[in-house]
């Protein structure tokens, strides 16, 4: 029992994923199946299609992962499944699967908060990362600054009052006709552009700690509409302008948060948007300016995956924090229940 093995299941958005992870950070096997082709023609994730794909793919994927690792359920110490927040149809498929495995194999169930998976995943990649650290969690559904004080102890310092930053990337990409998934497509386009458009940086310099991206997205829409026949150059420049503005917002807000938590040992970024190289670069510079190490998990660990859920399961299992088989599937589930609701949205977490 000194090196526990946990099975992790993720199905809260459009990735079906399974992984087997040990407490010594060994990943025995993992699979991640994205559903991009199913959602591409709609330009966004369709919840019913996502739930169907999870239901079709999860069981065969589990069998493959166990087979590849050469382990049986009897060898596993706990079953971890995402219980929210996310698209509830998919969450239910994954959580019921985790519960059934746990019950049938007589193993503990760990109902993992998807955001906790992201929050702890940097510790899977980096054994030297200790609590407390400042986490910028940026994805299609979330944009938060959290002081990660320990397993199960997350203090929210800031969240978005409207769109998540990844949502702004995806929607701007759609406005610019750059394809789906939008975030990576916009980043590719921006590489060829120069940020010559003057776009707003909502809340930058504000005393309010939070993020806002709706106005930036609308500014992209207006700038695009002002051009009758934009060239590929124009689109690339507008993409670069958006990315620079979004990056400036993230850096400004993160700098403000750093001033509030002098006790942190590192600046950490996680979530799908953490795959963006410009944002990584800007955050690395910010950390260096504060004399802090900058930790960004490898790209595959930033987007949704099963290993981060298994790892959160490992950390919770070692802390003795397990759930019973009645654990609810939760479309909304804030990591910091004590955090005040913010104006606008802030609804996602």
């Amino acid at each position: 029992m000194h090196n526990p093995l946990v099975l992790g299941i993720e199905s809260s958005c459009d990735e079906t994923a399974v992984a087997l992870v040990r407490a010594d950070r060994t990943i025995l096997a993992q699979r991640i199946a994205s559903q991009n082709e199913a959602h591409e023609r709609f330009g966004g994730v369709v919840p019913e299609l996502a739930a169907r794909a999870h239901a079709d793919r999860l069981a065969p994927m589990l069998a493959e992962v166990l087979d590849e690792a050469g382990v049986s359920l009897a060898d596993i110490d706990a079953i971890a499944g995402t219980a929210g927040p996310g698209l509830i149809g998919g969450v239910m498929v994954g959580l019921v699967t985790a519960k059934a495995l746990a019950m049938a194999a007589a193993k503990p169930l760990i109902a993992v908060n998807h955001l906790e998976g992201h929050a702890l995943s940097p510790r899977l990649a980096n054994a030297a990362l200790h609590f407390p650290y400042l986490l910028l969690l940026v994805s299609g559904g979330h944009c938060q600054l959290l002081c990660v004080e320990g397993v199960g102890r997350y203090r929210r310092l800031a969240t978005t009052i409207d769109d998540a930053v990844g949502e702004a990337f995806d929607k701007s990409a759609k406005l610019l006709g750059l394809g789906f998934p939008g975030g990576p497509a916009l980043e590719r386009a921006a590489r060829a552009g120069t940020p010559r458009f003057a776009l707003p940086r909502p809340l930058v310099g504000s005393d309010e700690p939070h993020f806002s991206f709706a106005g930036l997205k609308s500014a992209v829409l207006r700038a695009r509409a002002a051009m009758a026949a934009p060239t590929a150059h124009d689109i690339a420049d507008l993409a670069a302008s958006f990315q620079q503005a979004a990056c400036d917002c993230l850096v400004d807000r993160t700098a403000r948060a750093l001033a509030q938590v002098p006790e942190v040992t590192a600046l950490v970024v996680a979530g799908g948007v953490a795959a963006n190289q410009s944002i990584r670069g800007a955050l690395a510079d910010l950390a260096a300016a504060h004399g802090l190490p900058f930790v960004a998990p490898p790209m595959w660990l930033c987007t949704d995956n099963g290993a981060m859920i298994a790892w959160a399961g490992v950390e919770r299992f070692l802390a003795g924090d397990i759930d019973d088989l009645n654990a609810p599937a939760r479309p909304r589930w804030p990591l910091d229940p004590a955090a005040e609701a913010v104006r606008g949205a802030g609804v996602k977490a």
Partner: protein
Amino acid sequence: MRTLAISTSSPALSIALVDGAAVLARHHALIGRGHAEALVPAVQALLAGRVPGRILVDVGPGSYTGIRIGIAGARALGLAWGVPVHGISALSLVAAQGFAADAGLSQLWALIDAGRGQVAGARLGRDLVAGGHGLLAGPADDGVALAGAGALLWGRPAVHGDHPDAGFAGVLPDAALLSPQALYAGD
């Protein structure tokens, strides 16, 4: 063979341990929502440590969310125990309940509440094989008896007006078994 049957395609959470027509244990409760929370603890309590030789799961038609919960649970249990998992049509269950209620029938319309006031169903014979499934505009008025909760939505008399009952899964012949894939009535 001892069979675990699971039906979560309707507002009922219906599970049973059966051996042929014999019902060894059954739990059937109208819960409305909350199948994702209730299913696994209910199966654990029902089995009380027994492990079935196979699993039959209601694959619809019915609530899309409910169907997926049943299938996800059944497939995971099958994987954990190393036992086969087969799908069964909700209509086969409803028909079996109908023929049990009126032994004189040779055919009936098995009808389920497909949500949003819609009825899905098919005409089944005593072989309990549901050939097709689809949303129905209204009663066929072909003189064949109606069975299931869908009949009540039409306000018609029915052999029974119940949701699918897992306790009847044991009487389904092998010819009525399906793959454990969801049947989406609206598609």
